[in-house]
Structures are given as C-alpha cells and as structure tokens.
C-alpha cells in the first residue's frame, strides 16, 4: 500500500512523532482561534493558510500532508497515534448498552409546550450579548409553529439537555445486567472511553445529558413525542476545549415530521435556551392512504399487548433512526464531541416483543413480553451499536483536527463510546442496529470467522426481504444496518469478533476493501482495520429462542400510480464557489453541490433555496458524484426514498438497497437515482454529504416544501438566530429551477 497514511505508526521514529505532535499543537491553536470566533475562515485565507478553495496549504509543521523533514520520500507528516495510556488493551472492558431516556408525562414539563415558539423573555448571559431573549430558541411565529400540533398532540415527553461531560448516576440500560455484560447500572459511570483512560473534561466532550453511554429514545407509532432539549453548554464560546460550538440544532434522522422539528441547520439555539421538538411519529401518507386507520398492518403496540391502528401506509413503517447535532458548519465537531444518540421506533410489525403472535408482529429478536412485562420495546436481544473512530491527545483527551477537509479520521475504534469493548451474548439470535457515527470513516463489517449474518434493515427501514451476507457492504457515515447474528452456532466459552475490512488512507473514501485474512493480519497501516468488538458467548439462553427472521419483512410502497412531477440532478463536487456573502448563512468550500447542471458548484448557504418540490407530489432525483477521488454518503431529510438505479442500471441496486433509504454512498464517480414524495408536512429541509467534514465545508443545500397551506409562504423566510431572538430575512438566493411551476 501507499506510504501516505493518516496516522503514524507507533513504531515511527521519536523525531517523527515529536514533529507530528508539534504540528498537531500548531493546528490546534488555529482551530481553537477559529472555533472561538477569534479568526474566521476568510482571515485564514488572507493569512495564506488556506487556498481560496478552502484547502489547507501544505506547510511543514502545520499540515499533516506536508513533507516531513525526517522522511526520505514523500511521506506525509501524519498525526501522532492516540496513546493507549495505563496499559489500556482491547476487549478488556464491557460494551455498555445505550442509556434509555425516561419517558415522562407531557404535563410534567414546565413551561407547558406550545404550538408556536415560547417567546417568554429571560436575561441573556453577557457573554452572549446581554439584554433579554426568548427562553425557547425555536424561531417564533406561525411558520415555525408545530404542524398539526392540535391533531397530533404530544402524548409523552422526553426532557433532556446537551451539556459537558460528567458522571452518569442515573444509567438505565432497560435490560438486566446479565444482558449488559454484567454492568451494574447503579454504579456511577465516569466519562471515559475506557476505565484505564482519563476522564474527559467538560469542555472536551459534549453529549445528551452530558453522560455516557449514548442515549436511546424509544418511541412508537401513534404516540407523538415532545422532545424538550435544553442547551446547557457554556455561554462562553471559548469554553469548548478547542473545537465544537455551543450553538446546537438536533436532527432526528430521518423523522417524518414538520421542518420545525427537523433540526434545520440554521435553526440553532443558544446556551440557556430550550427547543421543543415535536415528533408526531406517523406513517408517511397519513393524509392520503389508510386515512381512517382501518388497516391492522398500520399499527402500533399497546401496553396491553394489542394493536392500535394508525393512519398511513404501513409500507412506510420505520424502525432505526438516530438523532444528532446539525449546527451549520459545526456538525462534524459537535457530533464528534458526542452529541449523538439513537432512536428506535416500534410498530405492530416491529414491536420488540418476540413472543407476541398476532399475525402482524414479525417477531424479530428482541425479548419476551411474557418475561419482562413489557409488551413492546424489549431490548434484551435487540442491541444498538454506535460505531465511531476517535482520537485523543497525549493526555488522553478527545482531539480533532478540523483542517482535514478531505475528512477527519480517528485512529481508535469505539463502540457505544467505549474503546474496543467486549459484549457477552447467549447462544441464540440477536438483532444489532449498527450506526456509523463517524465523521468521515466508512466501515465494512464481517465476523472474524466469516460466518453469515442476516441483514434485515437498511437505514431506518426493514428490507422487503432479509439478505444473507458474510460481509456487509461498506457502511457510510449515518447509514444504519440492522442485522441478525445467530450465536447458536458457537459454543459457550468461545469468542468471535466484529471486524472492519475497510481501509482508509485519508478521509476522502475507502482506499481498499480488505479480505478477512488481510484485515486480521494486523498488517494494515490503518489502525481502525481489524477486530473492534468482541462477542463472548457466555451461556445458553434460559428460554428457547423463539424469535424469527421472516422471508418477507416490509415490502416497498407501490408508487406505480403516482406520477413523477419533476426530475432534478444534484452533483457533488470539490472546488465550490460561493455566490452570496451573508455572514450568517453562508460558508466556504472546498466542497459543494451543483444543482440541475446549472451554474457553478455552490458552497452552502442556508439562505439559498436550491429546490422547492410542490407539496403532495413525487419527484425523481439523481445524485451524482462529480469525481473519482472521493466518496460521498448523501443524506436527504424528511421522507424515505426508493433507489431506482445505480450508475444507470436497475440491476446494480444490490439486494440490501432494494428497500427504502435515506443515505446513499455514491461511490467514486458513481450515480444514484432515487424517488421520493413530499407530503404530510412542509417547510425547509436539507440535503448534504454526511461525511460531516464535507457537509461543514460546505456540501449542503436547503430545499423546501412550500404550498402546504397556511401559514406557508412561497418561498420561506430564512431564520437568523440570535440569543436575543430569531429574526428573519428573505432568501438571499433562489436557483432558477427550484420552483418549476
């Protein structure tokens, strides 16, 4: 393989490692100044540190790809490896299950949630400009009011915060410790990536509720949720540990709800404010299909073990979401700091109780209602895995390098924010909901013995049919793969590992998919290749495994009678231009998107409307990778899509992509054609690369559904958030093909 690699080998010379550490410190100084608002990207360009396209000039002692003074060839400086302090070893600590958010009565929220943003005034911290401002950061007025709030009033609430790292004293894995590798949830959990590693400081790591393990929200159809999120980050922008920003916006990826709840990148809010997100948890098509809720397949589990019929198309049933920060130009940094959780949606079909036989329940591995007393949402054998690469500095504190516009790679694999853990399993089937929560890294997962796995879901959706695989396809950032592993093939006392086969040399794309034996050989220069999660088969199940993987899961919605109203093309390129200059809504490349083959590739401006599909229509969108040197996992918000073709061919859509999706790896020079509908709700949404370094720099665009009726305008005004209150301005750009009639 090439000698160009992102991280230096621990065996590199001391001089090389010192040089790399010095380069990292130098960069961190600039990152810190940039993230704290002391210097802008424009200033950095003027200083000659960036090209006008936004690329870091390869200056020795600064860029990791500048030629090393100690190298005898064109070897880049590289980053120093994250130290495994205190003899930290892989597979020596248990993987914690997610920490389940308490579901509380809506009436317990103070103040009570309101359809329009609560603009009650409060003092604003002097660090944020002083004066007074609203307690809720959601933009005010009817356009940002919760859509259909009266029709779909919240039935339960989740009250949470984003704050700096602290000890978790309230861990609730919602499973007995026997299903959590023996972890006693009563014990306080300090914020560490491994017990031997240092506790993360409150400025370095930010998460939901400020704690680990990452949080899980369990919801079910027909039960709208009010997610009240408090911003408890420091008012001082420089209290960020050198990266990350204290303004936040949470995207429930990929919720079907009004745009005011979508975590729009420009609808961020400030410390000491809250934002009420209203997640109605409805099936898409609720206003046009099965509107009277007569189809039992479109249903939600009741607490008594029955089914509650709901409106909408049951073929649109979703299962595995996640939620994460979506702050404009800072998503990579904020998510990397830990602002990410997972979101399981339960339905009659996928109810999380494998022993309920009602003709609707697919009975996927989860747990028994008869054993737990929970008629839905059993997690015993239904396990969320958040996989992400991280890096830390010489002191063991989380570190990031935002200069890597190709994409940032960590050199340490974590699962559920724990460095290379183990997980104890029984000899039976388990479902794993695998989320790639990295900044830029793609994974390709296999079991260490090449044993088969059954893929049942892709992104938020169960597939039409399960697919048997011995290695999963590459998994891009934000993609979710639901798989079933049957551990009954192993004996008690055996161990088997999850292995990453995808080798990176930089954050642009995978450089090579390795064979299993190559990945296990420890010869790759990519430290995140190889084993990363150990399964320990510890016992036989106390009761027989009655879970199933039916041959048919959820067939795709039938779109054959829905005309295509319009087709659009989005090409994802480097070398973007910025044609607007609003200091709040615009950002610079190098990345950008060209829409409908018109004009230049444009860098992000959340004040620009690039597409405006008409409410109630269906469109076909082509997503094209404009180059062969990189890959882009492209995410479209709002409603799940169907993949029509890859590289112009229907037959190139693999079996595991034949269901609905919301993120597509375009592959180098590749193209994906998809179809999607615009219904039920309106407002401004986004489309972007989910390599979040690309997204932030600035491969993101705004599209919106207008014409959904009062109060929606055409086009919508852009929110400009300030601690003293959100103002609005007219869109500063509207592409010619955005509105087509």
């Amino acid at each position, binding site marked *: *393989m*090439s000698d160009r690699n992102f991280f230096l080998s621990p065996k590199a010379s001391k001089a090389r490692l010192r040089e790399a550490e010095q380069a990292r410190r130098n960069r961190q100084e600039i990152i810190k100044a940039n993230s704290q608002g002391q210097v802008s990207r424009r200033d950095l360009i003027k200083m000659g540190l960036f090209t006008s396209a936004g690329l870091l000039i390869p200056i020795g002692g600064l860029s990791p790809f500048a030629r090393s003074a100690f190298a005898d060839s064109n070897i880049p400086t590289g980053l120093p490896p994250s130290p*495994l302090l205190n003899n930290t*070893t*892989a*597979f020596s600590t248990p993987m914690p299950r997610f920490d389940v958010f308490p579901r509380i009565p809506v009436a317990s929220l103070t103040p009570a949630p309101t359809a329009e943003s609560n603009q009650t005034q409060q003092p604003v911290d002097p660090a944020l400009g002083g004066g007074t401002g609203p307690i809720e950061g959601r933009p005010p007025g009817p356009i940002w009011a919760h859509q259909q709030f009266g029709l779909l009033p919240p039935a339960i609430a989740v009250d949470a915060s984003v704050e700096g790292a602290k000890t978790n004293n309230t861990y609730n894995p919602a499973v007995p410790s026997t299903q959590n590798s023996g972890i006693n949830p009563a014990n306080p959990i300090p914020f560490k990536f491994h017990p031997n590693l240092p506790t993360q400081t409150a400025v370095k790591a930010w998460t939901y509720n400020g704690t680990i393990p990452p949080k899980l929200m369990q919801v079910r159809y027909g039960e709208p949720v009010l997610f009240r999120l408090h911003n408890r980050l420091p008012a001082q922008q420089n209290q960020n540990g050198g990266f990350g920003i204290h303004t936040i916006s949470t995207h429930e990826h990929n919720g079907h709800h009004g745009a005011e709840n979508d975590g729009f990148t420009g609808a961020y809010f400030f410390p000491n404010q809250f934002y009420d997100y209203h997640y109605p948890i409805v099936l898409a098509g609720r206003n046009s299909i099965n509107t009277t809720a007569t189809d039992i397949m479109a249903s939600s589990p009741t607490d008594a073990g029955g089914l509650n019929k709901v409106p909408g198309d049951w073929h649109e049933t979703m299962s595995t979401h996640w939620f994460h920060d979506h702050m404009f130009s800072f998503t990579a940094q904020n998510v990397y700091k830990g602002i990410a959780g997972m979101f399981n949606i339960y339905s009659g079909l996928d109810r999380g109780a494998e022993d309920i036989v009602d003709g609707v329940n697919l009975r996927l591995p989860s747990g028994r209602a008869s054993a737990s007393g929970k008629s839905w949402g059993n997690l015993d054998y239904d396990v969320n895995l958040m996989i992400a690469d991280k890096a830390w500095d010489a002191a063991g504190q989380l570190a990031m390098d935002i200069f890597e516009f190709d994409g940032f790679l960590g050199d340490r694999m974590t699962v559920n924010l724990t460095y290379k853990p183990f997980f104890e399993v029984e000899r039976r089937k388990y479902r794993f909901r695998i989320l790639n929560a990295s900044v830029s890294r793609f994974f390709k997962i296999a079991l*260490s*013995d*090449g*044993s*088969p796995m*059954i893929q049942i879901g892709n992104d938020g959706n169960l597939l039409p049919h399960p697919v*048997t*695989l*011995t290695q999963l*396809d*590459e998994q891009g950032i934000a993609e979710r793969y639901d798989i*079933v592993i049957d551990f009954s093939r192993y004996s008690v006392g*055996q*161990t*088997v590992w999850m292995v990453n086969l995808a080798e990176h040399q930089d954050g642009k794309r995978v450089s*090579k*998919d390795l*064979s*299993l034996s190559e990945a*296990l050989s420890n010869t790759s220069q990519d430290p995140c290749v190889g084993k990363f999660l150990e399964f*320990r088969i510890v016992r036989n199940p106390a009761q027989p495994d009655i879970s199933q*993987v039916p*041959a048919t899961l959820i067939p795709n919605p039938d*779109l054959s*009678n829905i*005309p*295509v109203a319009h087709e659009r093309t989005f090409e994802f390129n*480097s070398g973007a231009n910025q044609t607007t200059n609003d200091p709040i809504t615009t950002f610079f490349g190098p990345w950008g998107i060209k829409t409908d083959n018109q004009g230049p590739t444009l860098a992000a401006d959340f004040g620009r409307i690039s597409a405006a599909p008409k409410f109630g229509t269906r469109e*076909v969108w*082509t997503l*094209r990778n404009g*180059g*062969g*040197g990189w890959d882009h996992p492209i995410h479209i918000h709002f409603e799940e899509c169907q993949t029509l073709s890859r*590289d*112009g061919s229907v037959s*190139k859509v*693999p079996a595991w992509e034949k269901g609905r999706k919301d993120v597509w790896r375009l592959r*180098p*020079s590749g193209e994906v*054609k998809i*179809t999607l509908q615009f219904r039920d709700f309106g407002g401004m949404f986004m489309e972007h690369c989910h390599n979040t370094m690309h997204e932030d720099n600035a491969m993101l665009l705004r599209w919106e559904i207008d014409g959904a009726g009062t109060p929606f*305008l*055409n*086009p919508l005004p852009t929110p400009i958030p300030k601690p003293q209150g959100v103002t609005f301005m*007219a*869109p500063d*750009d*509207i592409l*010619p*093909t955005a*509105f*087509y*009639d």
Partner: protein
Amino acid sequence: MNTQLNIKTRRWLFSPNVVTLLIGIVVVLVLGGPSTQAQTTSTAPAGTVDSSITLVAKGSLTDATGFITITGDVPVTGRQVIDTTNAATVTLMLLDIDFSQVQGTSGKKVFVTGGNHATEIRPFQATDKVIVTVPYYDSTKDGLSAKSMLATVTLNFDITTGKLTSGSVTIGNNVVTADAVGTTPVAIQ
C-alpha cells in the same frame, strides 16, 4: 413579506430561459403522461471505464453434510475510476462479484448462496486476487442455516484500457474460521 420574498422568484420565473423551461415542462407533462419509472442511462462518466466478464466457479468443500461440489456462473462487473482532478490519486477498480448463480450439490441436496454479491473497492492493478467468504445454505431452508465458503477470485485487467480480460473463481472451505474464533478472551492491543 410575501410580496417582498417573491420579487426574486418572479424575476427568475420570467427570464427567457425559465419561460422556455416551464413551457418544456408543461409539454412533457401533457404529452408524456404519468411516468412511473425513471429512465436510466448506461453512459459511463468521465474518468471511468466499465467492463464485465462472466467466470465459472469451480471447487468443492466438505462440511457436516459431506462433500459438496460447487459450480455456477459468476458475472463480474468492474468500473475503473481515475481521479481526473488529481493525477496522484490511486486509480480504483470497483467490483461487483455476483455469486447468485453459484450452487452446490451433495447427493440430492442443493445449496444456494441467497443471491449473494460481493462489492469491493480495490486499487487498480494488472492482476487482483479477491478473497471473500460467501454464504451457502440448503435450498429447502433459509439463510439462518447458512454457513460460509471461501471464494478466491482472480481477475486480470488490461492495464491500458482498464477492462477486465479474464479470471477464475475457486471455491473451497472457509479456512479463516480456524483462526478467528477464540476460546478465551484475548487482549489485543
């Protein structure tokens, strides 16, 4: 506000190009009728070379069932990708190796792969050996009963044109298994 917001839209809507576009859309909608499937194109983008070849899998393996003979066509499609913006970028070969037609037989038993494909990103080279595990299971059962076999796919390319020229697929027992299941927790740094 509505009026103010629509100023730019109106200006664009009545520009000659947009008017032409709108007329075109109306014509398409009126004459074309409802479309249910997108048209697809097989035109390869700049910097890419598409090629394909069908190989024949040969081999055998032994498991608890007994001796299983493996055969079947393996269509392989490749796309050579050159980064036209950066000559220093390693040229890639994107591979799709289709094992769906591969079958095994042992007496009257038939084994299938469940429509399995292997998708791989590899650096482009004259000859590449891709070693992948492939599931197989009794055709009367489902994928939960699957085991894995090892496929060694050797592919030869014309380095001038970037196209697939020849190759072979050899099937055997999954020998990775022997090394990759532990019996006790092992600490690996």
